[in-house]
C-alpha cells in the first residue's frame, strides 16, 4: 500500500513551501527544505545516529510540524473508517488531537464534514468520561479517539470507571506514529486490556471495518463495557485498496433471556410467596423500567434499587422497603456491581432468584464488580429481555383470590413507603438557614424550578446526601444516572457534560451538583461545554476540600491519639479559596457566586435555569456544608 512518508522539514521551510505551493499546484503543495538527517544533525550537532533523537525532541518541544506532502491521496483509508462509524449511528466523537489519528481526524472534518460531530476535549480523561455520561443519558455509545500510548494512559482511569459501571464506549487509539517512538507500542491495547471488554488491532482496512462492527456489538451486549480498536496510522493515511471494502453488515444481537421453564418457575415462586421483594439493579432502557412497573403492579411487592441507577420510579407506591419482615422470595435483577460490587445476595434470608449478566463477563486482574450475587437460583440472562415472558407467566397465575390478597398487601406497603419518603424530606429542615448552605437546601430550591421541565440529574449524588432522590420525582431512566462506576474522582464534571450533550438532543434540562475536588481534576471540560454550547446547570457543591478524605484523616489521627489540628493538610482546598465563578468565566461560561447566604440561592438558580433553557452552560458556585 502506498503511503505518504513522514520526512522532517524545517518549520520555516514548511511554511515557505506551503506558500509557494499554493501558487503552483496541488500536487506540489510542499517542498521539503531540509532532510531528516540535516534536521537531526542541526539540532543535536551530531551525525546520522542522532536523527531519531532530533525528531523526538522536535515532537516533544512543540517544534515538530507535519511531514511534507509530496503526493495526493484522495481516497484515504480513514474515509472508509468514517463510513463504518456512520453506519453504526455514532453521532459524536470526542478527542484531544494527536497525529496517530490525524488521518481519521481529517476524514471526520472534511469527508463526513463534522458529522458525527467532533467534541474537542482538553484531556483524554474528559473525552472518555464524556462518552461515559453520554451513553448513560442516551443509551447508545459515543466514539472517543485516543492518541497512542500517551492518550491511552490519560484515558485509563475514565475507561476503568466505565468498565466498572458497565457502560459502552467505542474507542479508537491511533498507533504507528513513529516520529516519537514513545508514543507507539507493539501492543497498545495491553495497557487497558484488563478493563475493556474487547480490544483488537486489525492489519487491514477491511479488518478495521469488521472490528468496529464487532466492537459495537460487544460493547452494547450486557454486561456492557468499553471496547478499544487500535488503528495504525498508515491504514488511515494510505489509499484505499482498488476495490474499496464494503461496510460490513451490522445487526445487533438480541439480548440473552431466561429459558421458559425457568421463567415459569420464577413466576410461581413470586406469586406463591408471602412476602416477595424485587431488588432492581439495572435496566437497559426506559422500556425495562416500564416492564418492572408492570411486574410490581401485578405482584404488589416492594421494589428496591439494587444499584445506583434509575430502575424504578422513586415515588411508585411499591418503591421502598414496604412493611413486614424478611422476604421469603427475593428476585434480584442485575443487582450489585456498579463498582460497589455484588457481595452476596440482597440479604434477609429466604429464597433468592438472580437474573443477571454478571457471570457473562469474567474480569481479569481487576475484580471491579466483586464476585457477583449469590442466589438459590441463578440465571445468566438479561433481566429486561426476560421481563415480558415473566410478566405473562405471572398474569396467568393470578387468580381473583390472589389479586385480592396482593391488593391488601400492596396498600400496606404503599402506606409505609409514602411515610418513609415524607420523613426523609422532613429532615431537610435541619440547617435549612445555615451558612454555608446545606445540600438539602440546594436540592430543595432546585425542585420547583425544574419540576415542570423535562429534566435530567447528571451527576453522582453520593456526596450530596442523596437529596435529589429524596426530594425529586424520578420516574425516567435519565432522571438519575448514577455514580462513577469504579469510584474514580474526576468523573463527575466531564460525565455531566457528556450526559448533557445527549440530553441536549432530547431537549432535556441537565442539572449537575458538582463537587469541588472532582471539578479540579480536569477543569478544561468547562471550555468544552462552553465551546459546544452544551446546556448544563452546574451548581458547585463547594465544601472547599476533599471532604471525604478530611473525615478519614481525622479518624486516623484520632485512632493514633495525635490530635486533629493537622487534618486540613493535604485535604482542604483553601488558602487560597478557589473562585469557581471566575474559573467558569475564564472558560467562557456564564457564572455566579460564591453564594454563602441561602437566601441568595433561589434567585441565582432561577437565573441559571433560564439561561440553560436558552442553550448554554451555567455555573453557580455555592459554598456548602461539607456533607448532606
Amino acid at each position, binding site marked *: 500500500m502506498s503511503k505518504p512518508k513522514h520526512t522532517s522539514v524545517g518549520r520555516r521551510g514548511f511554511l515557505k513551501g506551503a506558500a509557494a505551493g499554493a501558487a503552483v499546484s496541488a500536487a506540489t503543495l510542499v517542498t521539503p527544505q531540509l532532510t531528516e538527517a540535516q534536521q537531526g544533525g542541526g539540532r543535536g550537532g551530531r551525525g546520522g545516529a542522532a536523527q531519531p533523537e532530533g525528531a523526538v525532541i522536535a515532537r516533544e518541544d512543540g517544534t515538530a510540524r507535519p511531514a511534507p506532502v509530496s503526493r495526493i491521496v484522495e481516497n484515504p483509508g480513514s474515509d472508509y473508517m468514517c463510513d463504518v462509524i456512520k453506519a453504526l449511528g455514532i453521532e459524536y466523537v470526542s478527542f484531544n488531537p494527536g497525529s496517530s489519528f490525524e488521518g481519521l481526524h481529517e476524514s471526520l472534518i472534511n469527508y463526513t464534514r463534522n458529522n458525527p460531530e467532533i467534541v474537542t476535549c482538553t484531556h483524554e480523561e474528559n473525552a472518555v468520561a464524556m462518552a461515559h455520561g453520554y451513553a448513560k443519558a442516551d443509551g447508545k455509545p459515543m466514539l472517543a479517539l485516543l492518541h497512542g500510548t500517551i492518550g491511552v494512559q490519560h484515558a485509563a482511569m475514565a475507561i476503568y470507571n466505565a468498565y466498572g459501571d458497565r457502560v459502552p464506549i467505542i474507542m479508537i487509539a491511533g498507533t504507528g506514529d513513529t516520529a516519537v517512538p514513545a508514543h507507539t507500542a507493539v501492543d497498545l491495547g495491553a495497557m487497558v486490556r484488563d478493563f475493556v471488554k474487547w480490544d483488537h488491532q486489525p492489519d487491514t482496512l477491511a479488518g478495521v471495518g469488521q472490528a468496529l462492527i464487532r466492537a459495537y456489538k460487544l460493547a452494547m451486549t450486557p454486561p456492557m463495557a468499553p471496547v478499544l480498536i487500535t488503528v495504525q496510522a498508515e491504514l488511515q493515511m494510505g489509499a484505499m485498496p482498488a476495490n474499496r471494502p464494503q461496510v460490513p453488515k451490522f445487526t445487533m444481537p438480541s439480548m440473552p433471556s431466561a429459558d421458559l421453564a425457568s421463567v415459569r418457575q420464577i413466576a410461581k415462586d413470586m406469586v406463591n410467596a408471602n412476602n416477595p421483594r424485587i431488588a432492581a439493579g439495572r435496566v437497559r432502557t426506559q422500556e425495562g423500567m416500564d416492564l418492572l412497573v408492570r411486574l410490581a403492579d401485578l405482584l404488589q411487592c416492594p421494589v428496591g434499587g439494587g444499584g445506583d441507577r434509575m430502575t424504578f420510579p422513586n415515588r411508585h407506591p411499591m418503591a421502598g422497603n414496604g412493611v413486614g419482615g424478611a422476604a421469603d422470595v427475593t428476585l434480584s435483577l442485575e443487582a450489585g456491581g456498579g463498582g460497589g460490587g455484588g457481595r452476596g445476595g440482597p440479604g434477609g434470608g429466604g429464597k433468592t432468584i438472580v437474573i443477571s449478566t454478571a457471570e457473562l463477563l469474567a474480569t481479569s486482574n481487576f475484580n471491579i464488580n466483586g464476585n457477583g450475587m449469590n442466589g438459590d437460583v441463578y440465571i445468566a440472562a438479561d433481566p429486561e429481555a426476560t421481563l415480558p415472558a415473566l410478566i405473562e407467566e405471572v398474569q396467568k397465575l393470578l387468580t381473583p383470590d390472589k389479586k385480592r390478597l396482593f391488593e391488601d398487601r400492596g396498600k400496606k406497603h404503599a402506606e409505609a413507603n409514602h411515610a418513609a419518603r415524607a420523613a426523609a424530606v422532613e429532615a431537610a*429542615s435541619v440547617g435549612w438557614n*445555615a451558612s454555608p448552605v446545606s445540600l438539602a437546601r440546594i436540592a430543595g430550591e432546585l425542585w420547583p424550578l425544574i419540576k415542570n421541565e423535562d429534566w435530567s440529574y447528571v451527576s453522582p449524588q453520593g456526596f450530596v446526601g442523596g437529596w435529589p432522590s429524596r426530594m425529586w420525582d424520578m420516574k425516567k431512566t435519565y432522571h438519575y444516572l448514577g455514580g462513577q462506576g469504579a469510584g474514580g474522582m474526576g468523573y463527575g464534571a466531564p460525565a455531566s457534560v457528556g450526559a448533557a450533550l445527549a440530553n441536549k438532543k432530547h431537549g432535556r434540562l441537565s442539572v449537575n451538583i458538582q463537587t469541588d475536588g472532582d471539578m479540579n481534576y480536569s477543569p478544561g471540560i468547562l471550555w468544552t461545554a462552553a465551546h459546544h454550547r452544551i446546556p448544563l446547570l452546574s451548581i458547585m457543591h463547594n465544601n472547599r476540600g476533599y471532604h471525604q478524605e478530611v473525615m478519614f484523616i481525622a479518624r486516623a489521627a484520632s485512632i493514633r491519639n495525635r490530635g486533629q489540628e493537622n487534618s486540613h493538610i493535604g485535604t482542604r482546598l483553601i488558602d487560597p479559596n478557589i473562585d469557581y465563578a471566575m474559573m467558569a468565566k475564564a472558560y467562557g461560561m456564564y457564572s455566579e457566586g460564591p453564594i454563602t447566604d441561602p437566601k441568595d440561592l433561589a434567585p441565582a438558580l432561577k437565573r441559571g435555569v433560564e439561561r440553560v433553557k436558552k442553550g448554554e452552560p451555567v455555573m453557580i458556585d455555592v459554598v456548602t456544608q*461539607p456533607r448532606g
Partner: protein
Amino acid sequence: MKKLIFGFLAPVAATSLLVVSAVAQQGDATRGKKMFVDYSCYACHGFSGQNGPGKRLVPMKMATVVFTAYVRSPGTNQMPSYSAKVLSDAQLADIWAYIKTLPDSPEAKDIPLVQQLKAEAGK
C-alpha cells in the same frame, strides 16, 4: 440517649467531675469556633453543627461535663474518641461554648418549601 451518656459517665470519679465543670463554665466561644474547625468537628457535624453524618449537635442539650465525657469516650464506631492529651477539658469547654452559639434550625412545618416537598414526596 441521656441514659446512654450517663452510662459513660459512671466510671468517672466524682472529683474530676467537679474539676471538669469548674473549667467548663469558663468556655470561650471565640476560641471554641477555631477549635471546632481545627479539630475537624465540622467534618462530620457540619459548620452548622447539624449537617452531615455526625450526630446533630444543635441545639446542644448536653451539659459541659456530659459533653466532655461523651467526646472522651463516645462508645460508637462512628465518632472518634478524643483524649485529654489531644483536647483538654478547657478546650472542650470552649468548643461546647461555641456550639451553644450556633443557631437552631426552623421546624419543617415552618418552612413552606419543605412542606410542599414533603407533601409531594408522600403523595
